[in-house]
């Protein structure tokens, strides 16, 4: 009797269709917005499409982009954001400058290692001890910031004053001004970061583990995935990217100081979230983060071109962040997945 009904029973009558258009928009919709801005841009100012202006746009956000790629891994892992980013940037920069007398290569290495050490601490505490990532990285931000002011006495460290290695100092200062052919080195670095980040996320085993962890840490645990290690690596990647960004920023401003990375935390999170990486974790991609970064850059540029002051720019940025997070949250709630 049951076998007669079996075919009937196996059929699932529920509606199973997902809107493919909305899926695509959620994936790469950010570039549509970037495109709109690129169309609107020249209407606002004739200067918009000059090569100089486009270079300016990229220059203002290249370092931010590198940092945001790193933060995206933390967000993707379901841990919202790494707020220790500004201090890590400053720290990596200061250490690089302070060790310039060992030669440029060694000082760069030490700078990156300094940043990574903070990433290891963050990853360990959040991964193993399940500390709240926001509170913990915020605390680390403050402690590290204070440590730097204490050790270096709130002094600015100038590469050319430090040690006598004039050649190392000048090659360090040139780092952010270096061109490879016609293209600034920092642009190449940004695109490398995006491509490598995207490959790590979508092609490696770590990336697939991170996706499960970000989607549900409990499920990951019950799937035999080493959850603390996976989270730890995400924070390590964030610290690595912040170190690279911090070193370039230090080179750009020609001095190492505790306040170097100020503002990069919120800007990076904005770029990540505007770029479509879900605050709930497990969803989004690094190419989208590039889109979010570019959008911020173009926005600031357009505001500059029409003469809006810095003061109002932060307001606009904050409002955009609120709108994006709000829309994101609402669509999650609609799908019944509001676990952010």
């Amino acid at each position, binding site marked *: 009797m049951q076998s007669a009904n079996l075919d009937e029973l*196996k059929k699932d009558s529920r509606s199973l269709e997902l809107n493919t258009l909305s899926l695509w928009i959620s994936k790469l919709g950010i570039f549509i917005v970037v495109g709109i801005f690129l169309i609107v841009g020249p209407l606002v100012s004739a200067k918009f499409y000059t090569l100089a202006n486009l270079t300016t746009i990229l220059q203002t956000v290249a370092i931010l982009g590198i940092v945001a790629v790193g933060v995206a891994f933390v967000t993707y892992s379901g841990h919202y954001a790494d707020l220790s980013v500004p201090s890590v940037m400053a720290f990596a920069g200061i250490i690089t400058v302070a060790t310039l007398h060992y030669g440029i290569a060694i000082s760069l290495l030490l700078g990156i290692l300094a940043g990574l050490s903070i990433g290891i601490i963050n990853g360990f505490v959040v991964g193993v001890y399940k500390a709240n990532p926001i509170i913990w990285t915020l605390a680390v931000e403050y402690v590290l910031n204070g440590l730097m002011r204490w050790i270096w006495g709130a002094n600015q460290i100038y590469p050319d004053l430090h040690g006598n290695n004039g050649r190392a100092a000048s090659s360090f200062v040139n780092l952010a001004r270096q061109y490879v052919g016609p293209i600034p080195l920092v642009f190449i670095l940004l695109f490398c970061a995006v491509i490598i980040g995207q490959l790590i996320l979508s092609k490696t085993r770590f990336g697939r583990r991170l996706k*499960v962890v970000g989607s*549900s840490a409990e499920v990951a645990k019950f799937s035999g995935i080493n959850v603390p290690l996976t989270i730890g690596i995400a924070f390590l990647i964030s610290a690595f990217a912040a170190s690279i960004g911090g070193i370039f920023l230090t080179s750009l401003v020609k001095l190492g100081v505790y306040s170097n990375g100020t503002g990069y935390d919120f800007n990076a999170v904005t770029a990540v979230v505007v770029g479509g990486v879900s605050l709930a974790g497990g969803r989004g991609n690094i190419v989208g983060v590039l889109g979010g970064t570019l959008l911020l850059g173009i926005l600031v540029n357009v505001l500059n071109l029409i003469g809006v002051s810095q003061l109002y720019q932060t307001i606009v940025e904050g409002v955009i962040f609120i709108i994006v997070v709000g829309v994101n949250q609402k669509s999650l709630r609609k799908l019944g997945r509001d676990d952010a």
Partner: protein
Amino acid sequence: MKTVLEMKQVSKKFPGTYAVKTIDFDVFAGEVHALLGENGAGKSTLMKVIAGYFNDYTGEILVNGKTVQLHSPAMAKANGIQMIYQELSLAKPISIAENLLAGRLPTKGTWLLDRKTLIHESKKLLGRVGLGHIDPLVAVEEISQSEAELVEIAKALGNNPSILVMDEPTSALSKEEVDRLFGIINVLKKQGIGIVYISHHLPEISKIADRVTVMRDGEKVATKDITDVTTEALVEMMIGRAAGEMYRKRSSSIKEDVKLEVKKLSRRGFFHNIDFHVRRGEILGICGLSGAGRSELARSLVGIDPIDGGEIHLDGTEIQFRSMNRALAYGLAYLSESRKEQGLALRLSVGENILSASISRYSPKDGKEIVKKLIKDLQVNPAEDHRMIATLSGGNQQKVLLAKWMATEPKVLILDEPTRGVDIGSKMVIHQAVMEMANRGYSVILITSDLPELAGLSDRVIIMRNGHFIGEIDRVDCTEEELLLAANGKGEYVNAIRESR
């Protein structure tokens, strides 16, 4: 005798099926009316109708002789119906008093809390459940589970209910605590409150209930006075005769070699000195009530929880591990009982979920192949690996969960409630897959409260009760009646083993 609740021809339909079909059910003032049935029999749906969870039931409900509409929980409460759930509804960090009077805190003037009345009122309520000695200003998290349960009852009493519904109230209580609860229930009976009592523990029901209604497949089997029925008769009514037919007897595929052997395994407070073995190609059932320590045993076997003592041998050599990662590498896999929290990542696709426990095992290309094969073998519908898992039905999600563990190619697969809450079609597919795995030489440990499933699939069943191993039944003799009796600590198998030890 006064009838406080009367349900006439009540039905509740879910898409495609009746969860509750034309039920007549009534409760007298001052009686305990027990509601019995296996998982999926429709008990909890009926309770939800009473509690006002549905606004689309059909039939008539009378409270104290008046026809009422129970279309929302608030309407149920207004009509004097109070539910006491298994998961306590108390806010743990705040005081007992504030919990008891939540939503109607006494005030002085408009803004100020009237502490004196608060304490006085809550003391009165606590007194009714035998907790008069407890300080009502203590936070709920500081009292024991059983006391919290009594506070929960006190909270319900605060709304002056005429009907109290208790869902498995004793599942987390010790014997002494159960006796205390029964004492209080008897007092409530004298006060004229009608109590609906749901439980799987048959001995308890014969002790506390006045009448019992048995449900099966959404329909009422019978209502009897408790003095007119034996435990055996109740078991027979719950199971019915048709249930066994679902399982075609399979030719056993057991090989001689022991795959997994567990010696004196203990985790303090959960299970103690457990010994058992599973052979290659064998399906070993574990029978027991919820709280018997079955899931806890499984969790320790795969390294999610620690063990305090004992040995685990795989293929004759002792293995030790402290993480599920390692256990999985040894070939021990665990399909956990909670699909949504621990089993499937609802934001990932079907394919990603299937591969989530074997990320290091397959290359992307092999992974795709294996996903395709498993989707086909388990008849996952729709058969698309990119579809978000959340858009699948419960039964198909459960198939994907099984596929996830099959993809790890385990030597020993532990299944914890593999078909809970799934439709019959999916259930049959899952059973077929489990039997095929055994035939191919996998060892399977099956934990399930679904007794027909346990009896139909297992080659051998071990019985656990309160964290102890209390007996073993060979398949030849294994009937649902025997299993249900054994789970309740009764029956010849339990006794035989006890005497021989």
